[in-house]
């Protein structure tokens, strides 16, 4: 987790035009021209900083992705004639131009959406696991779910950061959607494990009710004592849900593999990011969430006895 944060911190993210505004032109060729030659020619048009990246289009032709600032209509037309003048049978196969305002708005929205989803999840988990009481409160499960979610989002983001650094792949709206899908997947995984913890807790506790009178009002205190150590109960829950966790990850992973190898180039990064997220999600709900809740319970117990 720390490693992921470090990677993101040092390499940064390669924000695409979806978020920064600008234009992206994909030009495909039968026979592609030399990259430097193309760059030099585009530079004569004075569009400011440009970046040209070699790529392959959906039909398997050699292509270049040209990123420039937000282009006006006349600039677009000029760029089209410039880039198709080189190479053989050049053709603009894709053009996207996004104003800076929309980019900014999209960035804000993506951030708000992720925060909103995380918030609603912690509230729901705390609500769904209310009454679990002993030895840690339902809010602890909520908080740990969040911690796990942060982990599961950091891992694919770090992968994206590396991809951006190594291959120049840019963060687009699809990436945000992949992250949100990872959030959904991961919280589901964690909830399944916690659900089993809850069930096992209920099955392995003795209820003790004591009545007391205070200023003429009767109070009833309910105390639960576990018949097994907490860490054992959690351990069993993890073991019992292991097969399910692995199988669901496998089916999801299989579907993603098909998407990665057979789906279009547009969604290849999406599939890759999700695969990393699914692995991280499965690992974290089994190997992070449960040990964490046990460690916290032990720490609490120690503090109370002191």
């Amino acid at each position, binding site marked *: 987790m720390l490693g992921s944060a470090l990677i993101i911190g040092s390499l940064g993210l390669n924000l695409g035009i979806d978020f920064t505004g600008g234009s992206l032109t994909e030009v495909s060729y039968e026979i592609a021209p030399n990259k430097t030659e193309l760059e030099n020619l585009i530079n004569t048009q004075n569009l400011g900083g440009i970046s040209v990246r070699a790529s392959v289009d959906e039909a398997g032709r050699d292509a270049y992705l040209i990123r420039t600032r937000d282009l006006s209509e006349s600039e677009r037309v000029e760029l089209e004639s410039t880039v198709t003048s080189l190479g053989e049978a050049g053709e603009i196969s894709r*053009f996207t131009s996004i*104003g800076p305002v929309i980019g900014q708005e999209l960035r804000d929205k993506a951030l708000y959406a992720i925060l909103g989803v995380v918030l609603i999840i912690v509230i729901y988990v705390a609500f769904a696991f209310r009454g679990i009481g002993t030895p840690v409160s339902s809010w602890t499960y909520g908080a740990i779910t969040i911690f796990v979610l942060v982990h599961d989002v950091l891992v694919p983001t770090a992968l994206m950061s590396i991809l951006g650094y190594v291959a120049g792949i840019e963060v687009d709206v*699809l990436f945000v959607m992949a992250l*949100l899908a990872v959030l959904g997947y991961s919280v589901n995984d964690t909830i399944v494990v916690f659900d089993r913890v809850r069930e096992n807790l209920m099955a392995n506790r003795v209820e003790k009710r004591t009545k007391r009178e205070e200023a003429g009002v009767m109070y009833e205190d309910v105390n639960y004592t576990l018949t097994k150590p907490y860490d054992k109960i959690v351990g069993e829950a993890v073991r019992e849900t292991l*097969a399910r966790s692995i199988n669901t990850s496998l089916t999801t992973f299989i579907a*993603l593999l098909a998407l990665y190898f057979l789906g279009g180039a547009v969604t290849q990064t999406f599939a890759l990011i999700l695969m990393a997220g699914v692995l991280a999600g499965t690992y974290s709900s089994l190997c992070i969430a449960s040990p964490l809740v046990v460690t916290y319970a032990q720490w609490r117990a120690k503090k109370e006895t002191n």
Partner: protein
Amino acid sequence: MTDSSQPQTPNSQGFIRAFRALIIVLAVAGLAFWVYQNAVQPEADKPFKLGLDLAGGSHLVYEADVSNIDAAEVPELMSVLRDVIERRVNVFGVSEPIVQVESSSFVTEEPIQRLVVELPGVSDVGEAVAEIGRTPLLEFKLYDEALAAQQETLQNLESLGESATGSRAEIGNVTIDGEAISQEPPFRDTGLTGRYLETAALEFAGGNSGQLSNEPLVSVRFTAEGAELFAEITRNNVNKQLGIFLDGELLSAPNINEPITGGTAIISGGFTAEEARALAQNLSFGALPVPIELQSTQTVGASLGAEVLGKGMQAGVYGLGLVLLFMLLWYRLPGLVAGAALLSYVTIMLALFQLIPVTLTAAGLAGFVLSLGMAVDANVLVFERMKEEYAKGISSREAASIGFTRAWSAIRDGNITSLLSAIILFWFGTSLVKGFALVFGIGVIMSMLTALVVTRTLLLTLPDTKKSAGTLLATLLGNGIQK
């Protein structure tokens, strides 16, 4: 008393179960046939709706300048704008142009009004931009004497400064009564714009009332509402000048001699016959109620879109096949049942895509393929619980029943959080994210539904046995690697 009120024998229960299972299988098969027919027939009522990135085409986003408009009037003006642009893009004759108003959400302080234009099949974005750009902006404004006087004062001040120092002095923002003086022509808005236009026609002047004989003119007829407004403006401002602005440029500023109640106006401005004809034609499509500016464009070539679609479908088919195979190998007979549930899920989802209709994009397809892997989760949860009970020696049917009861809380909590996330996404998202959230949300509900209805019914229809029976059937009903 009839026979049916008698206590049911185990046999008749079995019959009812089998009957229910048969109904479900037939219903899903029927739905699948309907989906297939809709997908392949060229004249189907409810074909799949493909997004621009799959069908190819242009996507344009315009920003409308509503800064001078009363906030309460904005929604109506935007819908007028949408209608005008819709008429305009219909010129292209593309199958289903989409023109929609989109308001930026509460994330930004002042909501920005946008117009999204989608033209499937039009890959020449330049032509589209030019065509939409031909929509004129027509405004009628009154001569503002106070503003004119202020502008004159300012000019005098400037020339004064010039003569005093011998060079041009910088007199920047001179303010009078605390408001900066506009350098625009001294006219103020009347609210009468092209939105009230009904028709426009080319005419030639008859040579009277000060017009050149045979000068090409454009006559416009207002709608009833516009005629009323026009009458009111002319009644209250007799002997003032009414400026006619086209695309922000002052064309002419005739004097209002008398109230005009007929609901027609003449636009002159030294046109050639050709210019006047073009203007009349452009105006007859409607005029812009507010100025618009192009903000973003996106084009995808049609062949490219088809390629993405084909690959996405291929990934879906193989993904589905592999997940089915995995479930069958791991869970054996129950795995076959899960496969039936997954096929029902796919069928229902595709039917909903056609019915709602959901616009399919590359991202939507990818999300759907992803959901194929996740949709079996409820089945997996149930089967794992069932396996535990079955291993204890309980009969298979009872084990299945307990499996559903025990797994329910996990299925419920997991799916509710997913559903809540989908709602938040739908609420915050831009159109692209909204589509994804919609598919995701429906997918969550449907995967839960198919697991609870299809899997449950079919699983309870399977013959009942115990693990200890040691028969082939008992092995088939067991699943996974048993201890």
